[in-house]
């Protein structure tokens, strides 16, 4: 049942922080996972944890410094994609739903234009056939009647409508994998759940084979994701089935995340604004556990030795010296 679509093997991504600094920033550090057919993997972490970078590597917008992507069906390595120059045609099998529907649609182009581009490019359809296909897609994302939307421009639509257009455009390329990068965080609270359900339904309909859902919000992961991977400063700290992670967090960082979720009964603050001391990139530890400076259970070993990800029951992976 759990058929792997795309496996991500040990990807690392480093950026030169700027031209004059000698220490590169490690955005993603040796992360591996598999996207499974019909399943949604949630990628959770605070901003700067590398989750967006992983999403961009999947789409091919960026290439990993080390590691590779492998399509399970063909065995094709996608790692060499990194050698291609940026700006070339991308792999249509991975499409993306962006965080900000305002920024994801060019204000000067009509909905029709944005939607038909992938159809024309990938399906080799002429423009009238592409228009019909675009109308179908709009219906699929429940924007009806489609004719009313096609000739509009982004600023004539509401945020939720725009995000549906963005989703429709992602589907237009008939992708195997969709990367949804915080698809609801900019939307009105009232429609977030609906949007997440739409994505869930689209996966169920077979509009795509698998999905990577990137979020900082563990609660929304509960709605959409089958599995969750928690990232801390580019490192995978914990991974497992969504219910088990939320129900029984093992890594201290996961626990911290859960504790900081606003709870109607327990007044708290949303995660993004928790006043964690943000560390300067150069000052990140290159040895030892990345979380050690903030960890309440820190031990000597944490500062000298990087914890390996170790398998637990139910396919759970945890990288922590303190968890035995």
């Amino acid at each position, binding site marked *: 049942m759990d058929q792997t679509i795309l496996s991500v093997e040990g990807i690392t991504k480093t950026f030169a922080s700027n031209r004059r600094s000698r220490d590169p920033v490690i955005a993603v550090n040796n992360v591996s996972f598999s996207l499974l057919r019909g399943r949604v993997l949630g990628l959770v972490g605070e901003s700067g944890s590398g989750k967006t970078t992983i999403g961009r590597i999947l789409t091919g917008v960026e290439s990993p410094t080390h590691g590779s992507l492998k399509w399970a069906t063909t065995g094709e390595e996608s790692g060499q994609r990194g050698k291609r120059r940026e700006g070339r045609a*991308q792999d249509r099998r991975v*499409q*993306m739903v962006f965080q900000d529907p305002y920024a994801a649609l060019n204000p000067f182009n009509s909905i029709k234009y944005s939607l038909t581009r992938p159809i024309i490019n990938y399906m080799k359809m002429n423009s009238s056939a592409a228009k019909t296909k675009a109308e179908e897609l709009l219906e699929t994302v429940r924007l009806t009647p489609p004719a*009313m939307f096609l000739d509009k421009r982004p*600023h004539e639509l509401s945020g939720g409508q725009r995000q549906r257009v963005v989703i429709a455009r992602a589907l*237009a390329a008939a992708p195997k994998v969709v990367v949804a990068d915080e698809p609801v965080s900019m939307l009105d609270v009232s429609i977030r759940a609906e949007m997440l359900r739409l994505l869930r339904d689209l996966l169920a309909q077979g509009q795509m084979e698998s999905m990577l859902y990137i979020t900082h919000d563990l609660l929304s992961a509960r709605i959409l994701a089958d599995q969750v991977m928690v990232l801390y400063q580019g490192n995978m700290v914990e991974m497992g089935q969504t219910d088990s992670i939320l129900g029984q967090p093992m890594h201290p960082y996961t626990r911290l995340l859960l504790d900081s979720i606003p709870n109607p009964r327990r007044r708290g603050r949303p995660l993004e604004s928790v006043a964690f001391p943000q560390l300067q990139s150069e000052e990140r530890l290159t040895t030892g556990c990345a979380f050690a400076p903030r960890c309440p259970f820190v031990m000597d070993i944490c500062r000298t030795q990087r914890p390996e990800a170790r398998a637990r029951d139910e396919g759970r992976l945890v990288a922590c010296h303190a968890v035995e």
Partner: protein
Amino acid sequence: MNTTTVQVSTNGSVTPTRPAWAEVWLMIIKTLWRNRKSRVGLILLAVFVFVACTGHLLAPYSVNDSSFATSAGPSARHWLGTTQAGQDVFSELLVGTASSIITSFSVGAIATILAMLIGITSGYVTGWLDDVLSFITNVFLVMPGLPLLIVLASYAPGKNLVLIIFIVGFTSWPWGARVLRSQVSTLRTRDFVIAARLAGDSSTRILVREILPNMLSLVIAGFLGSALFGLLTAVGLEFLGLGDPSQVSWGSMLYWAQNAGALMNGQWGWILAPGLCIAIFGMSLVLINFGFDEISNPRLRGDNE
């Protein structure tokens, strides 16, 4: 460039589709019109363009008519007096508007096209080509323009307007190129550009359909800046005698007036009028650019609206 504040009516599904570029222009003109300074600039510019188109009809006399008393001061028949050769100065001013504005706009156009070619290429590609183009841009940015122009113009085999336009145009692109480069390198990482790449669009299409419309206001601002610079530089060259003195323009009028000792001779109109026209025309461009500053810099918005 969070500028999509224009509301377009949404009367049903029959909204006629405007081409994307028309949309861009409409937005720009609306924004400009809302700003008081740029509105004044637009009106002034319109007046000058009108005079440029109709100058030869409005002029009371032909500029070739040298049958009047020579070197006369202002009078009822000759509002700004006559030249040393007996031509009507006011007629020259009206007729000269066309070539001055053509000079200004042509320089603006050449400089803008070069700035776009170099700046956008440099911003869109990475690696050695960007490095080389950026270096060239920075070098010409630092290179003092007028001395270079003087050297070029004085070596040129003939003196004519087209030559001046090309020489000035080909040396005034770097500022625009630099601005456009940084804008492109920002836009290149925007979500909608990434989306277009994921949609399989070619680089050229992405440039034309996604990036360019979003920097049109910068391009026009650069055009206006170059047009002003071009006019002032061309006028300076003409004043130094490096232009084409047979071409009636504001700059050549100043050249002739200065050579004929116009001020000494009490012919203040001959010197003042072309200079004022240059300054007011230039001011209209500066004022319009105030509006563009506000389009590209939201924090400046709210000025005198």
